[in-house]
């Protein structure tokens, strides 16, 4: 009896602790619009939003709880169990297209404050919030007077240098290989796998695969690779460490990141608030200030800071050669492409 009396408060305390913990992890089923859970990448993007969008929401009494990384497997497990703990998911347009209505809620575009916002690349379940480009970057200290001039050089086995590439087909290894093989930009899709892998085979011995932006940055900075199919957001960081990093402004591949509302999300009203806060001028300016991205809010100018501007795709630099990733194709073919890519890498 005595023991039970002691046990009860203890159990209650335990339950409270457990509830607090799960609440911190994502506010299960709280439905309370004073908070919103944002699953995102972390890193520079997130830091910029912390200082902008999160602040905006805090002023209107909404707390943003952050979950990093934005693990898609977790998202699937959550929506499958119909008990999602996340509200807004930092995604890619091809995923919001493919999984619309499954992983993501349809967006009510009447609730998106689109003043000045370029929604051209929006889809039913995805709102674009930043635009950037996959580029061919190289170490100018190494190449001196004979730098690469395009994807033909990157994929030319005779062209010297170690190459870096991300170990995800969605990061344009297939498209750039086809461009390297001389395929016309208009004929890229549907992807000709055989031709792409044949081209990749040629430089296989000099390829280094990376899975994080940090690895990419380090490899460029310490000379492990001489050129890279790169994320532009990591180039300034690599250059800071010493080498002179240059970009070949020939056929950069434009992409956008999208925000999706998680299917069955507990705080959907607040989710719209967060999306609107990320699209507004303050947040877009905060993003543009720290990364070479083109804001989706056209009222916001791109950065003119030299270390950002240098890696920013502009019409003057790329002269109409920019190619846009086909998100429709990727939505339908992502799994097959990933399987084929993994098989090729492991061959």
């Amino acid at each position, binding site marked *: 009896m005595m023991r039970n009396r002691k046990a009860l408060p203890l159990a209650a305390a335990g339950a409270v602790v457990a509830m607090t913990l799960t609440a911190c992890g994502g506010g299960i089923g709280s439905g309370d619009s004073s908070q919103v859970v944002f699953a995102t990448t972390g890193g520079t993007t997130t830091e910029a939003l912390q200082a902008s969008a999160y602040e905006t929401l805090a002023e209107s009494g909404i707390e943003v709880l952050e979950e990093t990384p934005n*693990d898609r497997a977790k998202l699937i497990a959550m929506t499958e169990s119909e008990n999602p703990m996340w509200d807004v998911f930092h995604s890619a347009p091809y995923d919001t297209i493919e999984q619309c209505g499954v992983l993501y809620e349809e967006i009510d575009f009447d609730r998106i404050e689109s003043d000045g916002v370029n929604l051209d690349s929006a889809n039913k379940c995805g709102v674009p919030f930043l635009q950037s480009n996959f580029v061919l970057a190289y170490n100018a200290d190494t190449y001196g007077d004979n730098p690469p001039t395009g994807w033909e050089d990157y994929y030319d086995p005779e062209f010297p240098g170690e190459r870096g590439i991300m170990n995800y087909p969605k990061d344009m290894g297939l498209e750039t290989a086809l461009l390297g093989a001389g395929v016309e930009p208009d004929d890229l899709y549907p992807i000709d796998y055989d031709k792409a892998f044949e081209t990749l085979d040629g430089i296989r011995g000099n390829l280094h*695969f990376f*899975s994080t932006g940090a690895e990419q940055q380090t490899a460029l900075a310490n000379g492990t690779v001489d050129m890279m199919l790169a994320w532009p957001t990591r180039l300034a960081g690599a250059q800071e460490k010493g080498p002179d990093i240059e970009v070949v402004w020939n056929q950069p591949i434009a992409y956008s990141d999208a925000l999706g509302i998680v299917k069955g999300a507990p705080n959907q009203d607040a989710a719209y608030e967060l999306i609107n806060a990320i699209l507004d001028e303050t947040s877009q300016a905060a993003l543009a200030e720290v990364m070479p991205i083109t804001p989706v809010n056209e009222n916001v100018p791109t950065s003119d800071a030299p270390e950002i501007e240098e890696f920013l795709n502009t019409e003057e630099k790329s002269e109409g050669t920019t190619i846009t990733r086909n998100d429709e194709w990727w939505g339908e073919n992502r*799994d097959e492409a*990933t399987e084929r890519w*993994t098989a090729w890498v*492991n061959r």
Partner: protein
Amino acid sequence: MFDHILRSNAARHFEIELASHCGFSSNNLGVTPVSTSTATGDDKKANRRATEDSSSVKRDRRARRMRLLILAPPLAFVLLLFVYPALELLWRSFTDPESGFGNYVRIATDPVVSTVIVRTVIMAAIVTVTSVVIAYPYAHLMSIATDRWRMVLTAVVLIPLWTSLMARTFAWIVLLQNDGPVSGLFELFGFGPVTLLGTTPGVVIAMAQVMLPFVVMPMYTNMKAIDLRLLDASRSLGAKPFTVFRKIYLPLSFPGIASGATLVLVLSLGFYVTPALIGTPQNSMFGQYIAVQINELVAFGYAGALAVALIAVTLILLGGVRIATKTKMSDSQSSIGGR
């Protein structure tokens, strides 16, 4: 004094834990097993008393209930957090994306799987051999060192074990850099600058370090129990040092080698963190292939089937090792003891 404590507690405890992991009884290792179950003895005693005294029946019942009560939380923990997810995994491998043996047929016909399995087994074998070769002299040194040195040697092996695996792996990334200290060491011996990060040798070096305690401790426990007078005896009968080692010490230390090697082999087969961070996708191991299925393709069913396949491969290898070591052990026993 220290030696006694170390042997009777730390090392033996460790040993028993290891032995139960890899299916070797601690008897093989020349250690008296610690009695883990006193329950049966208690029961018998209690039963005898019960016929004499009905109040002790109650006491006994209470004791049993108490035992159940104590056992319930860990049991619930294991059932809920290990058995249930494991069964779910197995279930999904037969039902996701559709019910049937589809996932297993796919494993059998997927050329990537066989490539990765062969690579993983080879990798695990290399790591095992490397660890054993490094650990053997080290364990021997530990077994003959003075108390103070033994303490130092033990600490050197165990302290890394208590450090986070992630921290250690990131440390290896720094050490294995192109212009890093390990490459410098190779250069010192005239091998020129070597690339280790992202290569098989780099992964082997880092994995062998991670595995070292798991092979040193069983070997040490075994070697400590070897009667060194046997060596003197054989020497006095005219055996040359190498013969003494080959005919006496090596066979006697074999149970330790077998135990440590088995443990490292099993751990290496399922290793993920170190090969994922230090290796490259081209030399990815089985764990990494499963991770691709989960993280990128979100194919839980196929990933589950792959995990089952990995367990099957591990069990087959363990069975092989078990048979091999049994023959070996009876050989060595008959050659030494004449039994």
